[in-house]
């Protein structure tokens, strides 16, 4: 099931001081009164911060009258929404059918080894977040992964590792 468990530990405290909530103001002003605005608001917030900070939920609820429970329910239902900060580069390894039969599992394992994190995690330096996604729709280039807006096709374990190593080198 899609529902993610609520995590009791507060390793990454999300205090209001860390995120500038005023960035959300224009978004809330435009969408406040629109019917069916809940998902577009959450999408907008994620576009600003890269994830949904805890404090943003309270602000949305206060200013739009939407219920906290509905907001949280929707945020945990859809795959798009993240409740934790993500790395600068999101590595999306495609696990669509075409990629699966072309051995996408190996690409994921290679990424886990190279980055030292598991699927869904973020590196300590906040440079990379590793995700597996259902289908990027470039099936004829399988296996495929996407970093930022760039798509990399016809991968093998070595070439995939090389790509992230190079990005890491350029970031330093």
């Amino acid at each position, binding site marked *: *099931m*899609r*529902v993610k468990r609520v995590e009791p530990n507060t390793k990454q405290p999300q205090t209001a001081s860390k995120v500038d909530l005023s960035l959300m103001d224009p978004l809330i002003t435009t969408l406040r009164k629109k*019917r*069916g*605005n*809940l*998902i*577009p608001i*959450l*999408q907008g917030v994620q576009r600003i911060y890269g994830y949904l900070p805890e404090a943003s939920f309270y602000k949305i609820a206060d200013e739009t009258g939407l219920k906290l429970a*509905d907001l949280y*329910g*929707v945020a945990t*239902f*859809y*795959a*798009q*929404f993240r409740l934790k900060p993500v790395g600068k580069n999101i590595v999306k390894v495609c*696990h*669509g*059918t*075409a990629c*699966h*039969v*072309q051995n996408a599992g190996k690409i994921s394992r290679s990424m886990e080894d190279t980055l030292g994190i598991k699927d869904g995690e973020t590196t300590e330096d906040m440079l990379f977040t590793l995700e597996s*996604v*259902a*289908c*990027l*729709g*470039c*099936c*004829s*280039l*399988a296996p*495929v992964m996407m970093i930022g807006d760039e*798509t990399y*096709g016809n991968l093998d374990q070595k070439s995939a590792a090389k790509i992230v190593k190079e990005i890491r080198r350029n970031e330093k």
Partner: protein
Amino acid sequence: MEHIQLTVDIGSSGIASGAGKVYDHLRTIVEKDNLAVNLKQTSGIGMCYKEPLLEVVDADGTYLYGDMTPELAEEVIHSHLKLNVPLKQYVVHSNRIQSDHNRFLDDQIRIALRNCGVIDPEKIDEYEQHNGYKAIQSILSENLSTENIIQTIQDSGLRGRGGGGFPTGLKWKFAANNVAIEKYIICNADEGDPGAFMDRSLLEGDPHAVLEGMIIGARAMGATAGVIYCRAEYPLAIKRLNIAIHQAREKGYLGKNIFGVTGFDFNINVKEGAGAFVCGEETALIASIEGKRGMPRKRPPFPAASGLWNKPSNINNVETLANIPWIIQHGASAYAQYGTEKSKGTKVFALAGKINRGGLVEVPMGISLEEVVNNLGGGVPNNKKLKAVQLGGPSGGCIPEHLMHTKVDYESVTATGAIMGSGGLVVMDEDTCMVDVARFFLDFTRKESCGKCTFCRVGTKRMLEILTGITEGKGVIEDIDKLLELGEQIKKNSLCGLGQTAPNPVLTTIKYFRDEYEAHIIDKKCPAAVCKQLLHYEIIEDKCTGCTVCAKVCPTNAISGERKQVHYIDQEKCIQCGECFNKCNFDAISVS
């Protein structure tokens, strides 16, 4: 000298393979050298396996070049401009040169895809030059009645292309019969099947066709507003849709009193999905537009009676809507000339997997799977043997090689246990393990189950556990019957299409590939050598040179042996990671 026409195919998959760079480079040199060419962009000819693509049209003919790089593209246009000859070795389709690749395009009947790869999707004028918005204009000028329009759609035999296969005309009739002040027409562009990209290519290549289809629907059903629910994962499709909507508004084709007809008010908005496969189901999709968790609800009431915001609503798939303007313009019988008795017209398929020519094709209904895979798709690469074709994604099934004569129509495909689905067609060869494929799809549906119905929520999880056990060599023979029983129960006791079809990949693979399940369970072997835990690695003594590479890479120190002596694998310690097999330079390690 006459201007030659250069067209670069810039769709999502083209961009992924570097088409943007080719286009930018061409534009730079065209401007710098003031070349006598017209350069434009298009999207979605469908030849994904040869992208980036560049089309050159000169006085002699049409040449489509594949596998372009900026440098190669420059070479190509200089060859055309200076020497007046094509660079034959890169041509993948031409009306002047015979090649086997020609079949990929020549064997197609392109109705829904009629403009994809032809027009610039970001220019309304180009759509209009290709008969765009003529269908709706003829409806309005001839003052065709609602009944008339719907009758034409019914006569054409068009059925829902999203997978359900419900007659479109009938669906329109239901919505038209419900009189209301507010009424909605919704375009379902939440294409979630892994391995399917028909709707994305259509929206990227010809967004106006979908808009026109919706406007015609609005006229026929009396809808007052339109919504396109598109996956957020398709940013380019959303961008081009918004450009198209903006252009249509400026021309007066959307908004108030559109096309100059007093009282004909219709507007379209794009809603971005947030990533939930179940939202392809109509009631879940409506819930999602309303800003709720995308969970299906009981029907009736059907959306035609009470849908979005409790108003009568009609929901059609992208491909269905793209067909509408063509049908209105060319007549129902022109469309119905293609296809079989019960499945008329054409269907778009996304060919992927172990196939030589992967991409997007539109074929007449009733063509055999064999023809699609071999004639258009060019067969299986590397002289491997075709094992099965997967149709319909996670809701569909695997059709084995001996049923490849199966006709592509709703009834014939359903008879095999698969479903027509929205058009994903994934080819599998002898290296694909069918148990693993079934496990893959079930893993997908388990994650995507919304959790409302117990059988879908818990049943898929249990099925996945059993399948995972089988692929790890922990299966027992009773598992097969358990899977069959669970599968039937889930199909019977789920509310929506997701649960009702989720067991299909498992049921069809058991039906046609029971021997593979038994090999995993009884012999503890994976015939396709995919399931890691069932692999057995051994060192071939005659070939081992004692170079010690394998012993060094082994993460569990399972390999021992002196330098320049034959090495051995301790099977107790081996975790089947395959590192030794990958690293050995002498092919001295066998895997079975």
